[in-house]
Each structure stands twice: as structure tokens, then as C-alpha cells.
């Protein structure tokens, strides 16, 4: 079943140029979808359309049966779709971590006792239990982002949209968040839409959409996408570093095989030279 239907959606900020142009796709319940594109390709605009922060200029987005243009259904839509943005500083509202996480559930009328449980769950999931009574402004960037993700988890959304939300984390922190997201997706069936520059985050996805100038330029599984090396480059994206090194090796006359996506495959290919 589709949890999000994007139907011929366009969006313009200034009525002269469209940031998103006639985009259509479905996201199935429980799917892990990645959206990639260079800066200014329209991917963050799209993120804001999923939970009705923006309403399409043309076309329609249906979230679990509700059109995002129905103004009286805003709360329902935002209960279903939680967005984690790039910069956690812009999303922190309270001076104590637990209050910050409680803010969302309080707003949608969750009972007091249950809010406590949700805070426990959310902090545990992101590995920040120790910081429950800390002040968010005393945390590092990566820690703040984990609190922001916990704030979304506390709403128990059906869909989580990650708008480049791992960009400020260190590799270990990033991997932890990716593991959390993967776990939520696989074990609890939460639908994930990851908007990212990181190619290794794309590799986790069931389906990838590549945006260019507001339009879908490529779609498919990660492997299908990265076969299109030349096209990826022409729209301002780069192949994963392992693919890049493989290409350089070929240029230098070392015959490593085609279609290398990650470090394990590259290692295998070099070993095979023997």
C-alpha cells in the first residue's frame, strides 16, 4: 500500500521558477527511499512538501489517504510524517532535553504518563539517555541532532523524513543514526525517506530518486542508479569513492571489473588481479 502518493507535484517560491517540477512517485508503506541531488536541485523543497510545511503549487500529495492541501488535517498529517532537518540548532525549542522531546507529543495531546514512556523510548533509541536532564545548548552538534531525531521519534510517526540530517555527525554518530533508522525501518516498519549527499546512505535504500533542476532525472535501485556513471556526473553528483578509485585504476591500465560500488567490492577486484 502506498503511504505517500506524489501526483504531478510542482512548487514555486516566487512564481517565476519552479523548485520542483511535475514530480510523481509513490512511497510504499515500510519502504526505505533515498532522494539525492546537488544543492539547489529541489530535494529539500520536496522534504517540506511531505508534511505540509509547503503545499504544492500544482498537483497533490496524499499522505496515508489525506491530501496535504486540507488545512484542517495539518495535525494529522504531521503526526504521520516527522521531518528531521539538517541543522539541529533550528529545531530546538526547550532548555532541557526532555522538555524538548516532550514538545511534540504535548502538542498532539499525548497523555502525561505516555509522554514519559515515549521520551524513554526515543532517548534510548538514539543513545542519549544520559543527557535527559541536560541543556541542549551545551551539547555538541552531533548530540543535538540525535536529540532532534528523538523529538521526531517521540511522535511515533509512520514516516520519517531525514533531510540531510546526518551531515553534521561524526562517522560513528552517523553510523549509529543509520543503524537506528535501519532498525526502525526493518523492525517497526517505519517508512524512511532519506534525503542525502552520502552515497553510502543511498546504498541502504530500496529505491533511489535522483533529482535535477526539480525533476526526477533517474530512479531505480542503488545498483541501477550507479551504473549510470556518466549521467550521475553530468548532473553534478559524484560516484562513491570506491567507484571513483576503480575508474582511476582502469584509466591507469589496471583491469578491475565494472560496477564496483563499495570498498569490499574494490578490495575483491584488486585481489582478483593475481
Amino acid at each position, binding site marked *: 500500500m502506498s503511504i505517500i502518493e506524489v501526483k504531478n507535484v510542482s512548487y514555486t517560491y516566487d512564481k517565476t521558477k519552479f523548485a520542483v517540477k511535475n514530480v510523481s512517485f509513490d512511497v510504499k508503506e515500510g519502504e526505505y527511499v533515498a532522494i539525492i541531488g*546537488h544543492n539547489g536541485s529541489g530535494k529539500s523543497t520536496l522534504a517540506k512538501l511531505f508534511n505540509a510545511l509547503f503545499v504544492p503549487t500544482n498537483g497533490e500529495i496524499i499522505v496515508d489517504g489525506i491530501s496535504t492541501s486540507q488545512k484542517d488535517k495539518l495535525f494529522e498529517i504531521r503526526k504521520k510524517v516527522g521531518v528531521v532537518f539538517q541543522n539541529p540548532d533550528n529545531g530546538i525549542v526547550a532548555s532541557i532535553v526532555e522538555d524538548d522531546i516532550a514538545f511534540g507529543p504535548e502538542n498532539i495531546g499525548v497523555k502525561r504518563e505516555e509522554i514519559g514512556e515515549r521520551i524513554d523510548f526515543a532517548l534510548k533509541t538514539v543513545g542519549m539517555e544520559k543527557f535527559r536532564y541536560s541543556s541542549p545548548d551545551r551539547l555538541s*552538534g552531533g548530540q543535538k541532532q540525535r536529540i532532534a531525531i528523538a523529538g521526531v521519534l517521540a511522535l511515533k510517526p509512520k514516516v520519517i523524513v531525514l533531510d540531510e540530517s546526518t551531515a553534521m555527525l561524526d562517522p*560513528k554518530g552517523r553510523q549509529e543514526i543509520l543503524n537506528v533508522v535501519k532498525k526502525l525501518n526493518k523492525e517497526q516498519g517505519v517508512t524512511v525517506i532519506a534525503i542525502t549527499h552520502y552515497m553510502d546512505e543511498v546504498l541502504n535504500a530500496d529505491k533511489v530518486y535522483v533529482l535535477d533542476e526539480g525533476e526526477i532525472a533517474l530512479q531505480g535501485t542503488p545498483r541501477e542508479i550507479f551504473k549510470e556513471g556518466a549521467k550521475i556526473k553530468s548532473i553534478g553528483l559524484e560516484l562513491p569513492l570506491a567507484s571513483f*578509485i576503480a575508474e582511476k585504476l582502469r584509466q591507469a591500465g589496471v583491469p578491475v571489473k565494472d560496477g564496483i560500488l563499495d570498498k569490499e567490492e574494490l578490495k575483491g577486484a*584488486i585481489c582478483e588481479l593475481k
Partner: protein
Amino acid sequence: MRIEVENLTFVYSEKSKSLQYKALDDISLTIEEGDFFGIVGETGSGKSTFVQHINGLIKTQKNCKKFTVGEFDLTDKKCDYKSLRSKVGMVFQYPEYQLFAETVFEDVEFGLKNFFPNLTQEERSEKVKQAIETVGLDFERVKNKSPFEMSGGQKRRVAIAGVIVTRPEVLVLDEPVAGLDPKGKLEFIKLLKRLHNDFVKTIIIVSHDMDLVAENCNKIAVLKKGKIVETGSPKEIFCQKNIVENSGLDLPLTAYLQRELEQNGIKLNSDLTVDNFVEEVKNYYCKIKGGK
């Protein structure tokens, strides 16, 4: 300017027993003039706290034995911070959030006006033009534009122009490529290399991106929980497995491959830059092919 640090410890909220937090713990370190120096470590390891000392945004606490940046003594209360800050440029995480002026020209000019109020309008214009061109933007085209109309990568360039306009000798960048798309990142790294060759003598970057650090830095310091675990060349740091794993860091791809290949009986000895790694694999391939 050489940077010398001995026994630097820094405690946040020093006076409050319940809130105090030791961010830096007995750091000693030398950064030579001309270094492209990388500071790495997991979130909360003290990297940002350390670099903010270098231009005096955070003042040294009493127990610091030595902290000099060129001729500036940062443990001295009378240190001329204004002059120091014109020589040590600081580019924060997401510097584009600090853009504020109506035009690119005014934004870049701001620091210059503050540090060198005695310059004439012509002298200022000339310096602003040079800074904007150095970061790879077309001066005539962007000077009257609003910085907020520009793309993410361009905004970051404007922000950097606003820092290098005072001709600092040391440029400190905290997570310089975070949030840039892959193409923006590549262009930005090229810009840093160009700056390092022609414009600023010493570059210090704080980064989580080990591939970036291995490719560009000649020296790296690894921080963990406020302490320095190790300093050395990328090869020294990343080819000693335990340093990296104990510090919560990833290996750069080249170092990972080199380690794994060695376990498979293929010994490569690159300096961990991509080009050198490719060269090493090529040599290996020619050798086995020649042997057959």
C-alpha cells in the same frame, strides 16, 4: 606563524561543580608554519574548543603553560586579540549562516573595515575584489548581488572571502565541507589547496571526513575526550590500526584497502592519497604481470 601549545586544559563552567566539564585535558601540540593540519576525533572530543583558542575566542585558563601563535602570547592577559584575529582567520561550521549584508561586496568588506579602519575606499575595494576573485567568484557579477540569492556553495565562498580579506597567515576551518554536495565539496577542496599554495601559509581543518584529511593534510592530531591520542602524518596515523579504532574514527578508504589487501598478501605502500594509491596498485599489477 608557528603555533605552540603546552599543557592546555580547558574546563567549561569552571566555577560550578555540577555543570563543569573538562573539554580539553593537558594538550601539547606544535603546528608549523606551512602545515596543512588536520584535527580529527569523534563528536565531543574537544576539536572545536581547541581551535577556538587559536584566535582567542576562548581564552586560556590559568594552568596553561604555553600558548603562542607567532609572536602572540595567548596566556598573557594583555594579548592584542584584535591584531591576532586579523592574522588568524576563523571559518566556522556553516559559515554561510553568518552572512548578513545586503550585497556580497559589503559582506566581504565588513571585516576589513573593522580591522583596518584607516584604509581608503580604493584600497578597501581592491582588497575586497582580490578576496572575492581568490575564492573563485566573478567580482563584477556578484558584487552587487544579495548573498542570500546565491547557492549553498557560493555562499560559503563569500563567507570565506570575508575571512581571507584581511590576509590572515593562518586559516582555521571547522568542518569546511559539511553540507556541501559532492561537486561543491570537490570544488571547495580545490579552493583550499589553491589558498594554501598562494594565499595563506597555514591551514588548519577540523573534520570528520577521513578521506578528505588523508588526501590533503600533511599532519594530523587525533583527539579523544579532550586529550591528544597521537599526532603524525596520515600514513602514521591511519596505518596504525589501534589508534583509529580506539578513537571512534573511520579509516580513509585508501588506508582500509591497504590494510585488507596486506592480509591478502598484497603489500602496498602509498601515502594514502588517491593518486598515489592508484600508482601503487598499478606498480603491483605490472610486477605480477611481468612475472607471469
